[in-house]
């Protein structure tokens, strides 16, 4: 179905989400919005790492660029909401392009180190310029939902609709890009850059392009993240965010977009599951506090050990093996 009529599948999926958003309570709607944002951010990492072979431990910084760009364009120029998201994508893509120029000359641990430094350093720039609001950050208010949606239409449902629509469009577009000439070139570069170059692919340019596209997606995720918390501040983009996104990408399987939901849902669900379990058993505070981190790390290790390419890729491989017999 997905292979033959991808657009149709995405529309059906969107309709299901729409119906779901009217059925579940508001906390789930809020969490749904968070999942949608993680989907975009993780897809951006998968594109970069899985498809073009470059590692980024600093995606939080690119999200921050997007978040701040959106908030600034809204607060300073009163840009309409849709435009703030476009500006966020462009600003982060520009940042990614510049970073990509440096990244194309680096690889492996050096690239990881560079992006890591960026994640640590960039958010604190906000403290240097008054216009960025310092430690307290800036408000980012997208306004109330349009009145024709009715009075019962909550703010979080509005956030959920915007975030889900953005995620659906982003993933659909990304899927098409992956199947285009660019996607194939990126995969070729990842596989073997010498062979790719011999085949006439400009390796450097393709790496920069992948970085730019990935950063644009991260910027979109950043703007959406800022929307759900209605503010941007340096603290919202900590190193922990960059790491959990990388973790999400590994759980989803870095080489395929198909599992992107897995990582996103895991990141949102684990803390809550732990909360529920812990509240049932009277356990010590330090155990309860550190359990989510422990669980996610354990999952990460298990994934790397047993399904290094992610559960979706693993299932496909098994399926193909069986088909061959």
């Amino acid at each position: 179905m997905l292979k033959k009529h991808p657009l149709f599948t995405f529309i059906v999926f969107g309709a299901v989400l729409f119906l779901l958003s009217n059925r579940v309570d508001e906390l789930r709607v809020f969490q749904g919005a968070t999942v949608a944002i993680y989907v975009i951010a993780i897809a951006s990492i998968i594109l970069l790492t899985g498809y073009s072979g470059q590692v980024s431990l600093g995606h939080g910084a690119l999200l921050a660029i997007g978040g701040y760009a959106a908030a600034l364009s809204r607060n300073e120029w009163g840009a309409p909401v849709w435009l703030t998201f476009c500006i966020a994508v462009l600003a982060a893509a520009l940042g990614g392009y510049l970073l990509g120029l440096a990244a194309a000359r680096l690889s492996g641990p050096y690239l990881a180190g560079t992006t890591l430094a960026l994640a640590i350093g960039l958010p604190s720039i906000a403290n240097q310029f008054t216009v960025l609001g310092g430690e307290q950050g800036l408000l980012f208010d997208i306004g109330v939902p349009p009145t024709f949606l009715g009075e019962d239409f909550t703010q979080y449902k509005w956030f959920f609709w915007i975030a889900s629509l953005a995620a659906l469009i982003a993933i659909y577009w990304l899927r098409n890009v992956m199947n285009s000439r660019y996607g194939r070139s990126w995969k070729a570069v990842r596989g073997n850059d010498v062979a790719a170059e011999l085949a006439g692919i400009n390796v450097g340019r393709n790496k920069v392009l992948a970085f730019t596209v990935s950063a644009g997606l991260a910027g979109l995720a950043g703007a959406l993240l800022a929307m759900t918390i209605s503010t941007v501040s340096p603290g919202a983009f900590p190193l922990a965010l960059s790491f959990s996104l990388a973790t999400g990408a590994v759980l989803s399987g870095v080489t395929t977009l198909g599992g992107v939901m897995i990582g996103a849902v895991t990141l949102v669900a684990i803390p809550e599951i732990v909360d529920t379990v812990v509240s049932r058993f009277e356990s010590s505070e330090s155990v309860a506090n550190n359990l989510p981190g422990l669980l996610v790390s354990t999952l990460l290790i298990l994934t790397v050990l047993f399904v290094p390419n992610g559960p979706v890729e693993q299932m496909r491989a098994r399926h193909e093996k069986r088909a061959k017999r």
Partner: protein
Amino acid sequence: MIRTNRRKLALTSAVLAVAAMTASSLPAQAASDPGLTSTTIKLGITVPLTGIASPGYNKIPGAMKAYFDYVNANGGVNGRKITLVVKDDQYIPTTAVAKANELILKDKVFALVGTLGTASTKAISASTQLAKRGIPSLFVNTGFSGFADKKAYPTTFSILPSYQMEAKIMGKFLKDKYADKKLALIYQDDDFGRDALAGFKQAGITFGTYIPYASGSQSLPATGAGWISKLKASGAEVTVLFGVSSASTAALANAYAAQFKTQWVLGSVGGDATTIAATNKAYVPLLYGAKGFSFAPAPTDATDEYIKLFQSIYATAQPTQTFDNNVVAGMSNAFVAVQALQAAGSNLTRAGLIKTIEAKGASFANPFLTPLGYSATSHVGATGYWIGTYDPTGALKPDGGKYTVYTTDSGAGPVVESTYKRPAMPAKGLPN
């Protein structure tokens, strides 16, 4: 005949459907606000329990719980027992919003208490729409003067004096005590520091040397490299540090290493011995002799009736933890919250609670040595500071052996020595 029947059926079901829809859309909380039963009140708090900003702060929920449990064991508030739901936000605004949402939507708390950190507090307030939903956010732990703005944050009450108040009082202290000395200021170059600069300007203080530092966040340690050589070059005799604990740690440690002597004056945020000890216990004695500011009685002052009570409650509830100013902060916060809930009466509502604090908040019994500033126009709690000197264990002792309290406002008002006499503690520290 069949047709009329069918029409009747359609009509009836339509009426029924409309009736059902109206009934289900009636406000569910007509009976009472969320988080309340006739025997319980549910409150929620998000604080950093893990992560780099957690040392010190992570003791606040335990301290609050200890006092609430004490009140519950003695009959509760107007017959209701208080439960406190605690969430860990790691000092990350995004997480703080997610956790606040769980508190409001899943745990259905009556009110938030003791939210910590300016960025988190701001994000929670905006994203969860506290004002629109009328959810009280009691006694947030931040000195950012913005939360005093009743229009922007109509349901939020702060407990700390504003940073500007602190700088004004510090300014007067410097003028009175060190007028002929060479002064220097190390401050955080953001809104936090700018609040302070505004306060010093109002106090008419100019420093010989200004050393701004860019802190990435509370969680990033400042280097302090170069500060001491600048101070040495300027011959600073008195150095004010208006920054976070990591900055004071860096300054004190570097000064010690360089054998540089100056009279340190530390702002309340950066002068917390517990937080400094979390970096390195060996740094705590470096606080010895520095001047510091506080508005609550010293945690070591067992002659204070509140401290005496809090110490005994905490020793029973958390026997393995040390009693420090974070514990005093948490228990004081819980104490004022209980006073507010008590004053709001047995017919408790969210709107009623907010109105009560505005109307009677200034007269609530509380452990602080400064008057509370709550009124229909102000949502700021404590309104002043006393000045003391750190002893070798990092405890702040009041100068002259007694608390001399100065009060002021966040505007152009003067700094005056307070004549406020704290009312006696209610019997056994219970609501009355």
